[in-house]
């Protein structure tokens, strides 16, 4: 029997102060994944007046079971790494708010950021490090049947589909991993993806091939999810033949990757075709005093070490901006 201890949720935070609506901060960091937390360490060490708002500490790292490519650790659990990141920020006595989302940024020489708890933060610069979240299919039936057979977390909801028929949408690493987990308990797993080749790493694809209860529907897309109270069937389209058919089943696991958390930036910054924030080599965005780092940017590689490195760059860039450009 496994246990997944989340130590960080038990640590008390003597050194966090609340954010003051009256101060003008040198910088406001939005997001508490590897990018935001690293930026916080750099800003505090530079002596900047810093505020940090975040929805959930650790970001995607807190949802990752094992990490084997962060330097210094040949293996570390995502919760443990989150705890270590947080501890390092905690020593400085930063102004901080957790479980809070930025909702809007009002540009200006001094910028104002509105939060979903009704308060506002004023700052000379902003570092956006809001990362990514899971993508939806955006097809009829999906929204209505969430948690009634439509699921986005295969490790959470997988056990409920023992002996049942399920579909996995997505043939990348997360899709194939979900299919492997589900093949162990479900009667049939349909792996559905629009490309005609699985995009996942070979090592994962090979372990999926060992299961005989997986049906591959490559070059196919789910068009609609049907069901009254629960998922009952899906409509699938064969992209090459332009034909569609139905499959009766009980569950649909959506594993089609992630989208950047940039919805709150509506009019402040132009985004690229993937809704990412374009940045230059100093993490500067097109808006003066607004910096961005990590998975939310157009930097191609989405990794913890990359996000942390970009967070450090954004902090140093913001420091230079405050000292040499801000008037």
């Amino acid at each position, binding site marked *: *029997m*496994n*246990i*997944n*201890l*989340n*130590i960080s*949720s*038990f640590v008390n935070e003597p050194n966090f102060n609340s954010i003051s609506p009256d101060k003008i901060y040198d910088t406001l960091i939005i997001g508490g994944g590897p990018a935001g937390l690293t930026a916080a360490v750099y800003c505090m060490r530079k002596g900047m007046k810093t505020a940090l708002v975040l929805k959930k500490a650790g970001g995607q790292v*807190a*949802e990752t079971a094992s990490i084997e490519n962060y330097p210094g650790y040949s293996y570390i659990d995502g919760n443990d790494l989150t705890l270590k990141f947080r501890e390092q920020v905690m020593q400085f006595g930063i102004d901080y708010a957790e479980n809070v989302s930025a909702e809007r940024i009002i540009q200006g020489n001094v910028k104002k950021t509105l939060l979903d708890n009704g308060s506002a933060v004023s700052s000379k610069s902003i570092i956006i490090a809001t990362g990514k979240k899971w993508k939806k299919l955006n097809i009829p039936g999906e929204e209505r049947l*969430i*948690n*009634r*057979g*439509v*699921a986005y*977390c295969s*490790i*959470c*909801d*997988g*056990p*409920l*589909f*023992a002996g049942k028929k399920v579909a996995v949408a997505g043939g990348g690493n997360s899709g194939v991993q979900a299919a492997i987990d589900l093949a162990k308990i479900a009667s049939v797993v349909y792996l559905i993806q629009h490309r005609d080749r699985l995009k996942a790493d070979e090592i994962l694809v090979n372990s999926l091939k060992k299961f005989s209860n997986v049906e591959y529907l490559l070059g196919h897309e789910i068009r609609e999810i049907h069901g009254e*109270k*629960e*998922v009952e069937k899906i409509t699938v389209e064969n992209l090459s033949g332009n034909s569609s058919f139905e499959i009766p089943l*009980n*569950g649909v696991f959506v594993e089609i990757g992630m989208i950047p958390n940039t919805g709150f930036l509506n009019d402040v910054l132009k985004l690229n075709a993937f809704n990412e924030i374009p940045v230059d080599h100093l993490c500067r965005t097109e808006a003066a005093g607004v910096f961005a780092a990590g998975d939310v940017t157009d930097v191609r590689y989405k990794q913890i070490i990359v996000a942390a490195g970009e967070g450090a760059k954004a902090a140093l860039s913001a420091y230079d901006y405050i000292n040499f450009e801000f008037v």
Partner: protein
Amino acid sequence: MFDDSVKNQIRTILNPLKERVNILYFTQEFECAMCRDTGEFVRNINELSPKLNLTEFDYLKNPDKAEEFGIERIPAIAIADSGGKDTGIRFYGPPAGYEVNSFLSALLETSGAKQEIPVALMNRIKAVNKPVNIKVFISLSCPYCPEAVIAAHRLALENTNIKADMIDVGVFPHLGVKYNVSGVPKIVINETRELVGAHPIENMLEVIEKL
């Protein structure tokens, strides 16, 4: 079951325990499928703080105790305060996996080492004056589930009219079927009202106030 480093981490987490906490574990002589693991789990945790006091009850031989605590199935864990008074907190199935966090949190909060709740919200919790049962259905591999379990247990702790059960659908699949659980966490209040997802205290309270 736990290696030394995990044991030390749990000891540290349990350090702030204030009052003693009574853990009542219900099992039976011929152990049920998950009883062995659940028993081993609570015994292991019990050793990690002198403030914890575990008592084991045979569900069949000790029907009075089971009835007093309203235990309907095993394996079950009930939490009572230092005076032995029921908190209304129940775990049906082993609180392992991610639920270890709910279990430790229940021990801390029962002992008096509580997270603060805003006064206005606390007044609303105290005002609940009818019997309420909250069932939170979970799976042990669900990282979001403890949030819902901890919120429901806190409601139970603050008002004796409220009882809150964590139920592992993996251990009690027939309950999963009965309550139509096809996504976790799922919260069922007084058998009729449902919330799907990890809802905070406020949302559960809103449903309770409308009962």
